């Protein structure tokens, strides 16, 4: 039987109520509940929210609000845990390629990755290759993900992969690509490590890439 405070965390996260979740987490810590148990309830609830989104029972802003509530909660609970015990599945840097400002797909992938327990660093839209490298190096990413929505901006994906090669960093990071006009064969052609046809598939690809890297 779960402690009532953990049940409340789950309820408030399902209602996307960030302030309430933060207050619940503080209360749970005050009651002596193990921080890892708090993280587990947050993760399990976020996973359920992610699944509801994938089935279109919930919508994007719901997922985003839940993700923000979870991040705020983690900011409270993570300092209470030894770094060695922190369950991080992996770090992902996300951005749209240079020249492309269509970001809704990226936002969906980012929200689903957060829901699945990954740490996501979103570097925005229309991002030059240099910024991808800078962000990956700064946060020590495992995966770099990029998207393009137009056939005219797709070639910048190859530029990104080539840039990582030119900097001698290609083997250090796994690169995943996606977006409307992008295909699996294009991803293979440019030397990307993975491709997601949908946001849900992208999360699975990221999981597999990180597992293989480890």
């Amino acid at each position: 039987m779960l402690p009532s405070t953990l049940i409340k965390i789950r309820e408030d996260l399902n209602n996307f109520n960030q302030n309430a979740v933060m207050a619940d987490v503080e209360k749970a810590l005050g009651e002596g509940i193990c921080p890892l148990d708090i993280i587990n309830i947050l993760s399990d609830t976020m996973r359920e929210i992610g699944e509801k989104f994938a089935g279109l029972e919930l919508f994007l802003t719901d997922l985003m609000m839940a993700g923000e509530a979870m991040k705020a909660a983690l900011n409270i609970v993570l300092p209470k845990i030894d770094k060695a015990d922190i369950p991080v599945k992996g770090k992902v840097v996300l951005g749209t390629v240079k020249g492309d400002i269509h970001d809704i797909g990226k936002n969906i992938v980012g929200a689903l990755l957060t829901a699945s327990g990954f740490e996501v660093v979103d570097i925005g839209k229309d991002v030059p290759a240099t910024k991808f490298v800078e962000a990956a190096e700064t946060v020590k990413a495992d995966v770099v993900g990029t998207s393009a929505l137009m056939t005219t901006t797709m070639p910048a994906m190859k530029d990104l992969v080539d840039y990582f090669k030119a900097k001698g960093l290609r083997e250090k990071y796994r690169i995943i690509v996606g977006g409307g006009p992008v295909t699996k064969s294009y991803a293979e052609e440019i030397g990307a490590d993975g491709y997601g046809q949908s946001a849900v598939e992208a999360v699975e690809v990221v999981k597999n890439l990180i597992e293989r890297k480890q």
Partner: protein
Amino acid sequence: MPLEQVLNTVRQQIQNDDSSVQVWGLFVNSVSFLEVLNRSLTGPVSSEREFDYKVAAKLREVVKKYSIKYDSETLVPSDDSLADNLFKAAVEFYADVGTYCMDTERIIRFSEDEIKDAIRNVRHEVLFGEGNEEKAFCARKPESSDLPWCHVGAGIGATSEEILSKLVEAYASIPETNSVSVATLMDVDGIPIRTPPLEVYGSVRMIALAHEAMRRAGRPGLPILNLVSTAASQIAGIAVSTPQFQIRPTDGWLVPTFPDLKVYNDGLTKVAYLLNWGANVGSEYTPLIGGYSGGPEGTAVVTVAYSLNAIMVLKAKYHLYFVSNIVDGCSSSRDALWATATSGQAISRNVQVPIIYLAYQAAGPATEMLFYEETAALLAEVASGLSIETAHPAKAALSDHILPLESQFSCKVAHAIAGTNRHDANQLVKTLLSKYERNLRNPPKGKRYQECYDVRTGKPNQEYLDFYRRITKEIVDLGVDLELV
């Protein structure tokens, strides 16, 4: 004479003579583009995320208030009150939420009175084309027997200049073609196009090739309405939009609004340039089920709101839109068809502007599924008062995956079904759905142009022609009164 009568007399005079609009601006009570730019700098401050949350919350509120409900069995509703409630919901929503300017991080807002006044004064037709091809693109209404405007082709990537030319020549050769959508050129002399300077080179070449192709088809005056497809950046698009590159103000330019209801200064710059030239501004919008607007109901409302944004912010003379969902990524799912039909009816009944609907099919060219999907979409569009753009196979994601005969099919179906009532359209849509729905997540990729046509002569091969005849006969047997090839 009472003041209201004076104002109505003046308004009537202004509608009869557009050149007086600027002089009589005070009496027209519409919001000028300069005022829009002013509001982009002085409107309420908001972060993008706050705006997205406000959009979602307000949509939920108006969907509930106006009882907008998705019915998965009635994809082309005949209920005029649903369409009109959708419109009312959109006006209330848009007056509250406005349009977000990404560069200034401010909201461009309009009152309900300003919105309603702009709708009253909106142009119901726009002139495109030159010489023999000059033609008025007029707004339609649901179940109208007026022939829909046929915008033929797609901005799908073409891997060679030869293929691009052959495609455009074929589009221009279709008798029903009213305007052309030119393929995107992927490279210049082998260099992939992906920066603005390369886009300029590619666009200049694309336009020259398209004009030569239309000339060979005997229709040099046809308008191109998807300018400038090879230029992803607005700066490149503006740079090539001049008469010295054969571009004419009677062509059409698509200015995007991003999900949901967001504009950038780049796009507003393009509008400023085109308005000063007197060229045809088109508004392009791409509502997404499962995105910020939520399910099909919220997406239908936001689609109508996009049409209001087109009139109020972009001063667009024509609109082009498509609805898709985040799961299937195409326009052929039940919820996308419903959102297409209901938004189309709401706009065509209440706003009355020239609108092209562009449906993205999951299946690729030369597949039965493509024809089922495209026919279903056309029924939803035409019966709901929209005009059409021809098929976009394989979600327009694959280069060279487009066949002119399938574009011609779209036109012939669109003309054949003009005047179909919504009830009959719905029945046929459901029949077609039963033939393709289960394959939406794993559709056939289809074939490239080169596999079905002789690139040198531009003629379809016998294998493809046999397939085409067989599938069009099947569509006729389903109840679409098509003339068989």
